[in-house]
């Protein structure tokens, strides 16, 4: 059996993974990033109304991330701790944008987009690490 056939076989034999809490929190963080970047394209009160609705979502993502920490190994946990920091920074910048005026609003929103993006990246890295660990465990 060639290496390609072996890997194909291993892939096909992998159990279809159900979506666990890490997948769900990743989806929530992706949604958060999408909502902030959509808000960033708006102006004035329309933007602020969107940002007001985003703040509780950011808090919920941070809470879910903290809850998911306990069940993970150290490598995955490190990515998630980084993600928590980025989500908390997102919250901070969204809150600042609601109080700010003029160009400061735009600056805060851009920071929020960047932090939300970084948070999703970190969660994706955690998901990848978990999937690789599960795959290695199933097919050492």
């Amino acid at each position, binding site marked *: 059996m060639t290496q390609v056939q072996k890997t194909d076989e291993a*892939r096909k034999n992998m159990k279809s993974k159900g979506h666990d809490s890490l997948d769900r929190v990743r989806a929530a963080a992706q949604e958060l990033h999408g909502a902030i970047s959509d808000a960033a394209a708006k102006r004035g009160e329309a933007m602020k109304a969107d940002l007001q609705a985003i703040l509780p979502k950011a808090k919920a993502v941070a809470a879910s991330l903290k809850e998911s920490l306990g069940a993970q190994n150290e490598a995955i946990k490190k990515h998630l701790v980084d993600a928590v920091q980025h989500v908390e920074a997102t919250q901070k910048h969204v809150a600042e944008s609601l109080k700010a005026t003029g160009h400061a609003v735009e600056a805060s929103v851009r920071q929020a987009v960047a932090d939300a993006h970084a948070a999703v990246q970190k969660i994706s890295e955690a998901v990848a690490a978990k999937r690789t660990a599960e795959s290695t465990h199933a097919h050492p």
Partner: protein
Amino acid sequence: MRNYIAVVFREKSKAYEGLHELWQLDSAGEITVHGTTVVHRDALGQFRVDTKETHPALATAVGVGVGALLGLFAGPVGVAVGVAAGAGLGAAAGAGLGAAAGGIVGAMTDLGRADTRSRAVDDTRFVLGIGQSAVIADVTEDWTSAVNDRMLALGGTIYRRAKSAVRDDEPWFYDNYFYPYEYVPSMDSLYW
């Protein structure tokens, strides 16, 4: 293994199918997609990047970043030329610049490759022809066959570069130019 992949399609619609398939593979747990972007080359040879960012400064950043991204698949020389050209244009132009910068950066990257023809033999030979579209993604994949099977079925041509090799080459953070979820622009913005 963490890889940058570029999948070139002859039609824009196929590129969006490819984009969707990548995220479907992620959803199935076969790969992990960290981010994606879709790049098009129009009839005039200009590169255009799907983006919802409308602020000129962000568009500039995307132009520079995408120029670098395209060069990335052409090897270290292409990356250096692409970023230099993108940075120079970025300072001079205004709104909508991402697309313009990307186009000229792409042309410069082609030129850079032509000037280093002997070296190009070892490159991945990434080419985005007139009228073609490419999905560019940052993925973790334990098996390349998952992506290969789906993309080949759609008629895509696949190019890969290990992220670790890219990091060794250049310190730029390409990740910022990817959408961390499946993003397809509205139909209105697709007609250009």
